[in-house]
């Protein structure tokens, strides 16, 4: 029948057209990709340093237009997992990898500190008084042992401040995070009870408190709940004009959290810095050191699998710890102190490709 043959033709024509179009598009896509193939260096990991890394990638492309970076801020845990499985060229983490995690990696992973961050205790009280805390007070508040703002122990440390008769509402992070790690690492160091009862981790079993998701969740809850206390990143607190509390450091001085006091924390720990930089900076020695600070690290393999990418990566890292250190302060991160930079230089020089050093000899 005529109709049948026509519809047959139609079907055949349609199939052919579809085949031609799809082949055309696929080849076009492949061609486009190969033509625009600049070097793309992939990284993934911590969310905390994402703003400064973004800024660095933008600035570095002016120095070396051939090196494009792509960073996915999926969290420190994700960063560690991806670099272990070699799906990315570098990882990023707010907390140092454990020995167990390092042993699972197919090669030796190096920790490169990039910037410093600090965690501050923020609160919501009428009149926004400037509060001071001692280490044991913070631990006891978060353990649930101090439940009211007008507790005499708090009053003793804050003379002249009228503390109200309100219950203290603790707010912590509900999601796993490097910020939490820094906070509980500090509390574990200053309180034996915390160390035994709760311990260290990116997520812990909090004795008391409500959980907010992200820095924004915690600050949102603190801002909306009179009598609340919570911990957030310094950068976040400054940007959102949250009240910052001073904490007494190891040397006995009450230090206000700031970029300078954070860098001082690293300088204080620089004398005893281990070669692999896997150090906790909380409660360090030093007069002006803010006690609740930490590095954030980039994770790279000592033996790089690709020469071109490896060289670009190492050159970027060198730039980041030198010229790049003038950008963190604007974004409210603390730059690395000079003695630590010197140590990192030695580590960067150890990165090799097939036995050959990737950085030209100085």
């Amino acid at each position, binding site marked *: 029948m005529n109709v049948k043959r026509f519809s047959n033709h139609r079907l055949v024509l349609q199939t052919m057209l579809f085949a031609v179009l799809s082949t055309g598009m696929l080849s076009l896509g492949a061609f486009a990709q190969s033509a625009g193939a600049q070097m793309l260096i992939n990284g993934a990991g911590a969310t905390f340093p994402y703003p400064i890394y973004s800024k660095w990638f933008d600035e570095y492309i002016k120095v070396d237009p051939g090196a494009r970076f792509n960073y996915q801020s999926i969290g420190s845990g994700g960063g560690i997992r991806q670099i272990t499985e070699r799906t990315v060229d570098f990882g990023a983490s707010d907390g140092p990898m454990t020995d167990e995690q390092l042993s699972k990696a197919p090669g030796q992973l190096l920790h490169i500190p990039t910037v410093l961050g600090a965690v501050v205790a923020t609160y919501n009280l009428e009149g926004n008084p400037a509060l001071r805390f001692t280490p044991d007070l913070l631990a006891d508040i978060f353990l649930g042992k101090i439940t009211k703002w007008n507790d005499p122990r708090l009053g003793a440390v804050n003379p002249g401040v009228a503390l109200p008769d309100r219950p203290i509402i603790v707010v912590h992070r509900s999601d796993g995070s490097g910020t939490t790690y820094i906070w509980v690492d500090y509390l574990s160091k200053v309180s034996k009870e915390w160390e035994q009862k709760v311990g260290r981790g990116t997520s812990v*079993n909090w004795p008391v408190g409500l*959980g907010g*998701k992200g820095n924004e969740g915690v600050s949102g809850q603190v801002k909306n*709940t009179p009598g609340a206390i919570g911990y957030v990143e310094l950068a976040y607190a400054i940007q959102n004009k949250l009240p910052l509390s001073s904490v007494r450091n190891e040397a006995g001085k009450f230090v206000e959290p700031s970029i300078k006091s954070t860098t001082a924390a690293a300088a204080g720990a620089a004398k005893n810095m281990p070669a692999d930089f896997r150090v906790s900076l909380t409660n360090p020695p030093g007069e002006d050191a803010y006690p609740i600070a930490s590095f954030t690290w980039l994770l790279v393999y000592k033996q790089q699998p690709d020469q071109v990418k490896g060289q670009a990566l190492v050159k970027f890292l060198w730039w980041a710890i030198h010229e790049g250190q003038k950008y963190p302060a604007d974004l409210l991160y603390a730059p690395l102190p000079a003695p630590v930079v010197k140590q990192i230089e030695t580590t960067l020089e150890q990165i090799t490709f097939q036995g050959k050093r990737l950085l030209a000899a100085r």
Partner: protein
Amino acid sequence: MPEVALPRLDHASRRHRHWGDHVFRLLARCAALSLLGLVVTLVLVMGRAALPSMRAFGWRFLVTSTWDPVAEVFGVLPLIYGTIVSSMLALLLAVPLGLGAAIFLAELAPFWIRPPIAFLIELLAAVPSVVYGLWGIFVLAPFLRDWIQPTLGASLGFLPLFQGPPYGIGMLAAGVILAIMILPFIVAVSREVLLAVPNTQREAALALGATRWEATHVAVLRYGKSGLIGAILLGLGRAIGETMAVTMVIGNRPEISLSLFAPGYTMASMIANEFTEATSDLYLSALIEVGLLLFVVTVVVNALARLLVWSVGGPVQRGRE
């Protein structure tokens, strides 16, 4: 007349189908089977990943309350409790409201007002979950904390349900937000079910001297009962799986408390909160087991809902009668 072997003109017989039809049948079959395969693969992969946790904890996983990632002890009883309580609270608030709206739209409203109201209610379903969460933190929680919770605490405070300090954030806030989110689903499906009730039923009731409410109650609601229950179960299924909005207002505290003012935790919120930073294998495996549990619960609830809506087979079928 001698028997002549006539050629078979049965167009359904395989050999006489057009080859295009064969291709079409094959493609359609592949599409259906691949979807089924996807679900089966999902369950198998999750099951395999959850195996280490299942072996380590066994039944204790479902009945203990400690969730400690540092000590690697995991128990999800508070999560199950939180999921069930927040969903039930949402149903308690949304079902009367939703059924009432559906009855209004199907029976009582003047015809010109039905499309706009139905449209507006269905718009609620289009609002993203995160937006509900933000509204919850900045509008609902302060409202609950400053007005509703103190009033409830003062008047009904003798009940353990309304005891405790008013945070604003907590199980009550989660229940209210979930109720708003499942409302459009309940209204839409109930309205369809009610509209499908044949007019003869209503006419018969009215002819027997029933009032408007009696006619609606006896003739329409009772007739479409299984369909309505199906709509409610659909809303429940949605409430159980809701993640973002709940995690922003529920307080994220894995504890069982009788009070609605207390913070709680749901299975979906736990996974959303802790999955990215779960570094150890047992921790990851425990979270995947929570996911598997949530999946099983959601499938069971949804399957029940579908069966009920379909079993409306006999009495309530569109267009018949």
